[in-house]
């Protein structure tokens, strides 16, 4: 069966009874069976759970009234750091190789209540730590546009799955760019909501003050649809916002007129290290928004050059505390050759965690340790305040800020694995939104000569997620980049 590519059309077809949820689910599972092996986008495929769920939706649909569910019958994939009751959830780590959560994350409950069918768990960097999906205990994910390149990370499996058309929607998590950067490198839409917009309950914590769950989709409209389902207050997450959830569908229903919208351009950040082709695509995108009526305004984010070191101090400090729970006692891998409990902790953690996770736990433990706390951790938190103030100031004169999402297009597998600092620089334009808690989106804005996707990022004011979606939608309407699909994987394999 030829599935429509977008979630809204699938939902409408199921609701009209032109196709059943089971047929849609089988088609998605077939696509995954063919399309996933060269990509390794999925860490696990939930055949039985998905088909049972789809059958249940079809049974409900047999009644007089088709349930009015926004994602009725829509197949979705989840990054494997979100807990799914009864389905192995590993965070792509060896330490959780056989872990079966006893509960569902809040986003899982909300997706299923909205009629979505979860078809599998996607590969990621271990505990979401990385920018290439190479730090997975289950092998790297490959980029559907070029199989010798990374999909970005850490939510690379979710990005690749949507880019290759295996699922119309997927969830990722974004701590420093882990939704937006892979969305850019895979040529799809990826949205990091405002901090607190989406419950983190059931998300395996990496850096709690920065982590946020958000959607991947082939269009801004679909991303808005999925965000509307997962957003909202959750008593199980004390940091989730009690603010009312706006109508995100209305935000993307306009005709793309940007008159009256002011878009900030922090050109001082683009002087070095940004690929020429990325810069050209960015400049062209800014002109598109100007043609649609936007006013382009220069802005300065004075402390953004320090955002990467601030991020890596704060994120690793929080990670070192969050990952203390993996100790071989209550869940996960346990070294079986220890004679004391202390040795058991050390060996279980030393063998269960991969290298990048250990590197970050070490860094985080160091910056929190006696004698270094003030110089690193507290200092980074103070600079974080200055970074937030820079955004606050910029947002007095503009409505959104536009930047490239990533300074380069997709890089080759293995290219940056030996140099952590080089890998960390992949996040130079994305970490600011996490440090300041702001909503930010990446949307496709062009290709390099080698036909690798380039992403454009819009960042908005705190809790103005709808404005970000509105501007991104206007840009998307004015261009055709989001409609481009990668070449057939089979033709790449035979090259």
């Amino acid at each position, binding site marked *: 069966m030829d599935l429509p590519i977008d979630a809204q059309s699938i939902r409408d077809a199921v609701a009209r009874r032109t196709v059943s949820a089971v047929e849609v689910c089988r088609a998605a599972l077939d696509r995954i069976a063919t399309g996933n092996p060269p990509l390794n986008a999925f860490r696990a495929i939930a055949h039985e759970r998905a088909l049972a769920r789809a059958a249940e939706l079809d049974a409900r649909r047999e009644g007089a009234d088709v349930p009015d569910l926004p994602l009725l019958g829509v197949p979705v994939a989840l990054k494997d750091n979100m807990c799914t009751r009864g389905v192995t959830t590993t965070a792509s780590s060896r330490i959780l190789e056989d872990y079966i959560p006893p509960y569902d994350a809040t986003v899982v409950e909300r997706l299923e209540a909205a009629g979505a069918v979860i078809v599998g768990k996607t590969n990621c960097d271990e505990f979401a730590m990385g920018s290439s999906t190479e730090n997975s205990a289950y092998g790297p994910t490959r980029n559907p546009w070029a199989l010798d390149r990374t999909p970005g990370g850490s939510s690379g499996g979710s990005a690749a799955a949507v880019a290759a058309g295996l699922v119309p929607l997927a969830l990722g998590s974004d701590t420093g760019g882990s939704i937006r950067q892979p969305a850019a490198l895979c040529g799809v839409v990826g949205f990091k909501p405002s901090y607190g917009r989406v419950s983190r309950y059931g998300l395996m914590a990496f850096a709690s*003050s920065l982590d946020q769950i958000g959607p991947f989709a082939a269009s801004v409209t679909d991303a808005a649809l999925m965000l509307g389902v997962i957003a909202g207050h959750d008593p199980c997450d*004390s940091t989730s916002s009690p603010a009312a959830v706006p109508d995100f569908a209305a935000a993307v229903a306009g005709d793309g007129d940007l008159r009256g919208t002011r878009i900030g351009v922090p050109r001082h950040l683009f002087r070095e290290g940004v690929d020429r082709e990325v810069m050209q695509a960015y400049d062209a995108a800014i002109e598109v928004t100007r043609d649609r009526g936007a006013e382009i305004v220069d802005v300065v984010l004075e402390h953004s050059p320090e955002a990467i070191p601030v991020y890596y101090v704060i994120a690793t400090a929080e990670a*070192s505390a969050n990952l*203390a729970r993996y100790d071989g006692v209550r869940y996960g891998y346990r070294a079986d050759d220890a004679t004391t409990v202390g040795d058991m902790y050390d060996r279980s953690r030393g063998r269960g965690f991969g290298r990048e996770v250990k*590197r970050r736990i070490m860094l985080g433990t160091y910056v929190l340790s006696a004698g270094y706390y003030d110089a*690193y951790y507290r200092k980074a*938190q103070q600079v*974080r305040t*200055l970074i937030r103030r820079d955004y606050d100031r910029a947002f007095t004169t503009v409505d959104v800020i536009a930047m490239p999402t990533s300074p380069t297009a997709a890089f080759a597998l293995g290219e940056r694995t030996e140099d*952590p600092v080089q890998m960390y620089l992949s996040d130079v334009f994305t970490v600011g939104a996490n440090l300041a808690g702001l909503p930010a989106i990446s949307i496709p804005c062009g290709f390099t000569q080698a036909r690798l996707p380039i992403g454009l990022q819009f960042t908005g004011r705190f809790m103005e997620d709808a404005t970000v979606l509105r501007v991104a939608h206007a840009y998307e309407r004015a261009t055709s980049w989001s409609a481009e699909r990668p070449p057939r994987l089979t033709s790449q394999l035979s090259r």
Partner: protein
Amino acid sequence: MSDTFSRADVERVARLARLELTAAEKDLFARQLAGILAYAEQIQRVATDGIEPTSHAGDAAALRDDIVRPSLPREESLAAGPDADASAGLFKVPRVLG
């Protein structure tokens, strides 16, 4: 602050973090953490006198009423333990005193 990170530093931090590292990892991390910390030094250039630290970026965490709710049944809580004794209701570990 020193911009080198010795093997002894690695061992001290690994003890705090409860991580057993191989000899190769100790050498690798000494080199790489020195590089990362040297890179992170640039935040020292920023003037921050009197600036409040930001610990998280959302609204202030909201307190809720303390309502008694059912928690996970004991068997389910124990189910993922690598050496749990469901009938006794315990996670077993190697001896605590060496």
